[in-house]
């Protein structure tokens, strides 16, 4: 075995190890390295522990309730499950029904999620206002939320 061949073998081995390690990491982080959980991922045990977590999803249509000028109630959904959220504070500009949002807070006793922070999550679609109007008029408007 010449030195050069040995070296080549070592490089190949290194690459294989790195590649498999990357696969291992990607496979395992898919569920774990989330900035937030989706409502359907939340189960009973999460509701019982009063830890601070983040939930991400869409603000359910027709669920937004303004209780007072700075106190709100709404539901966060991912079309499989939904969670009732209560929030006192200022909402970001982009916060709208049907729009994505990430809520930070913890569950209270009656399974209401008490939010301490609300972040709006905008999608990757950019479109001028006028075009949206015309799209709506012609009936081609079907935006699929992420």
């Amino acid at each position: 075995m010449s030195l050069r061949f040995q070296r080549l073998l070592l490089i190949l081995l290194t690459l294989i190890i790195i590649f498999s390690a990357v696969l291992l990491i990607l496979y395992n982080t898919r569920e774990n390295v989330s900035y937030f959980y989706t409502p359907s991922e939340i189960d009973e045990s999460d509701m019982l522990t009063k830890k601070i977590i983040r939930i991400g999803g869409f603000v359910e249509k027709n669920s937004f309730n303004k209780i007072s000028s700075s106190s709100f109630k709404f539901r966060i959904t991912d079309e499989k499950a939904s969670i009732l959220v209560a929030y006192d504070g200022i909402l970001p500009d982009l916060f709208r029904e049907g729009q994505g949002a990430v809520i930070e807070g913890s569950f209270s006793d009656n399974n209401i999620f008490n939010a301490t922070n609300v972040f709006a999550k905008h999608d990757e679609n950019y479109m001028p206002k006028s075009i949206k109007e015309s799209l709506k008029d012609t009936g081609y408007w079907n935006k699929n939320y992420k």
Partner: protein
Amino acid sequence: MISFLSKIGSFYYREYKLNLSGFQDILTNIIFFFVSIFIFIFSIGPEKETISLIGVGIVWTLLLLSSTLSLRKFYQDDFENGNLLLMRLNGFSYGFISILKTFSHFLFVQVPFLLSIPIACILLNIANDKVVYLFASFAIGSLILSCLGSISSSMNLMNQRNFLLGSLIVMIFSVPIIIFSVGIINMEKNFYSLMSVLVGILLIVFSINPWASGLCLKLSLENN
């Protein structure tokens, strides 16, 4: 083959002798670790719940900091008194020297920390069932830290002006380790998948280490 193995054995005999004579350095490192824990406890206040809430984070931060303290001695002494050259002439390639050195650092610097973790957990009111997770995550995490330490300290062998840069490099690349290993403790249900992420990072760092540090060692010895 047998002579090669006994050469490896004598390498570790040498490291053992060296570390035994410099045992007070390792001890100082550990004392640094504990004194910092005391300082954390006093600066946060006596509330046991708060301390146990952030305890895991404190342990990890301090472990990282105190293991970067010993980085300077990783290759520097052997580089300056020519022992690195002696090892090369004794038939070890630079990459292999870095692997041996990494394990030696793990054995003689990180393992004492590992053994002192349970005491730190008692001081910080960390729940007993979490200690096992912390222990497991640090066992892998510290090996990753040793590899990173090898890379960064071999890079900074010829850097006389700014030695803090070496610690900075280790700290930058240890961000994902801390994320995942603290995650292990806070989310017990995902233990195995998070653990395999750590193992994945270890594999990557471990396979990069001989190439990167070997090249850096070669460079520094050539231009010394």
